[in-house]
């Protein structure tokens, strides 16, 4: 694949969100309307204890991604009630339209004592064209299970072959704290299948081979069908030193499949790498691939996990 980068199309510091939020516009995900493209993302506030809470907002672009024509004026979805899986943040927020219905799968965060956080996948629906979303219940639709003990998140749902497919991640282990690092987590990409988008059957498989080592962390799968095959982008990183060392930080990975079951990983073939300098030179993460009119676009975050904004690339060539 060959992508042409269009640059950082959203800068947090130049947006009205800077008045209410601290930083970040993470995991941009698109819904294409007739005359514009809405991009949802998670931005951050600090709570009384000084810890971050991720909240979902959106911006609307013209269909060439040249101009921002609208900003959300209130939160898209409330955080969870006391003790709920999404009490301490929603990130990412993954909108999905089926016919004329607009749904969203959420990654809800809750704080733990021995480790930073746990997460689960929630479900919400919009009755006002995507301005706000309501949750179907207080709890998650996908959560921990026998072989996926924690950190179930990063949902991405599409209908393929007449079924709902959810690609998501789950935690494999939390490494104990050492002198060098706090407890760090390892997570992998899996998938689940559903007839209704609400009741899911986990396939209990890791579907993407590690490239770094067994502690490789894989996140945010996004899948698109082009011609007769399926293409997945995701991001991956080392377990430790990924915040400060460029060579250990998130990069975009790529895999393809003919049957949604067996995936071949080939990151080079994905055709998109970090820039030599600038906003996406030290890190690339949280990809989202989608059709818009006749073209295929890739939204993603750059340095520092999307602290400063997000950018986009357009597909020029399939090889």
């Amino acid at each position: 694949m060959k992508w042409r980068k269009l640059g950082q199309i959203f800068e947090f510091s130049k947006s009205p969100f800077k008045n209410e939020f601290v930083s970040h516009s993470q995991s941009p995900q698109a819904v294409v309307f007739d005359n514009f493209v809405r991009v949802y993302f998670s931005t951050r506030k600090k709570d009384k204890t000084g810890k971050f809470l991720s909240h979902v907002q959106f911006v609307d672009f013209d269909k060439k991604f040249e101009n921002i024509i609208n900003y959300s004026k209130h939160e898209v979805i409330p955080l969870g009630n006391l003790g709920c899986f999404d009490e301490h943040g929603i990130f990412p927020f993954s909108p999905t339209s089926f016919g004329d219905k607009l749904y969203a799968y959420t990654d809800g965060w809750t704080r733990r004592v021995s480790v930073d956080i746990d997460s689960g996948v929630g479900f919400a629906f919009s009755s006002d064209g995507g301005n706000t979303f309501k949750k179907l219940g207080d709890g998650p639709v996908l959560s921990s299970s026998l072989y996926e003990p924690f950190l179930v998140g990063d949902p991405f749902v599409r209908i393929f072959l007449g079924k709902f497919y959810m690609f998501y991640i789950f935690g494999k282990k939390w490494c104990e704290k050492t002198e060098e690092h706090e407890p760090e987590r390892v997570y992998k990409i899996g998938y689940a299948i559903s007839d209704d988008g609400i009741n899911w059957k986990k396939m209990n498989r890791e579907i993407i081979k590690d490239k770094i080592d067994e502690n490789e962390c894989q996140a945010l799968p996004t899948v698109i069908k082009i011609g007769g095959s399926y293409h997945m982008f995701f991001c991956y990183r080392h377990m430790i030193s990924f915040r400060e060392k460029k060579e250990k930080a998130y990069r975009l990975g790529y895999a393809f499949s003919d049957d949604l079951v067996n995936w071949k990983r080939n990151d080079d073939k994905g055709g998109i790498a970090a820039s030599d300098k600038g906003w996406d030179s030290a890190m690339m993460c949280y990809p989202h691939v989608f059709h818009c009119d006749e073209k295929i676009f890739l939204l993603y975050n750059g340095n520092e996990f999307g602290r400063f904004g997000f950018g986009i690339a357009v597909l020029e060539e399939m090889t």
Partner: protein
Amino acid sequence: MFKWKKLGRIFNPLDVKNKFWLKEFAQAPATLLFDEFIRIYFSCRPKRDQSGQFVSYSAFIDLDRKNLFNIINIAKEPVLKLGQKGCFDEFGTYPISVIREGNEIWAYYGGWTRCVSVPFNTAIGFAKSKNGGVSFEKIGPGPLLSYSLDEPFNIGSVRIRKFNNVYYLFYVAGKKWTMVNSKPEMSLKIRMATSKDGLNWTKHNKNLVPEKNGENESQASPDVYYTNGKYHMFFCNWIPETFRDTKARKIGYAYSTDLINWTRDDSKAGIDVSENGWDSEMIAYPHVFEIDGKIYMIYLGNEVGRYGFGLAIIEGELN
């Protein structure tokens, strides 16, 4: 009509010496019958840890079948290990409920993790014993039954039963955390799930027992016993808003002919707190069992079993 005649306390954990993990509390007693003795599983605690909090272990005592006040054996070690870092059962395994399956004994247990905004969360784990119930091995690091849309947290207080070749889990799910005097107090409701193999479960997704003490009433330890053509459920209940002051939990009663529709009638429970002594403030976590033609209830006393559990025998017909 039936009543329970109290026979006295059979186990006080403060009497046990030289077991760091069994210092106080003997909670949620559950029985397993052997030819010569009756094994009673329960959950207990070491002294508070450095952060001032408890962990829970599960263990057992064996009682002489001919004299239930004669303890002939105490577990040498806890029957289950605590979970690994970040897992649902890292800080406790409480309660435990067991069932014989051929040469194996299967255990369903509540796993405890610590949270930041509320004190804890729980989910239900699964383990098997191949040595007659002396120790159990977990099937996987995660929970068997976890949070879901209508059951957002605090999945626990589990009991395993098998009726007409169907497995039943009676358990509780959290409905709401309410702030009472700046402290979160939980509202739990009795729920049910069914399974053909004991491993894959379908949640019934309804509250089984109507509330008698307001919509926030907490219900726990649903213990179901079948006799005389009826299913009899004994459980405990309390009022979250006043519990810290009254320290009171009481035993409630409901009956059903189909396990789905339950009629509650606490006036029939036939047991209440004593005027003084170890069970004068609270009676909770009832468990009904039959041995050698007699029906007994085992239950715990003050401070949710801090000082152990006692035995009562039925007078009249359980019908």
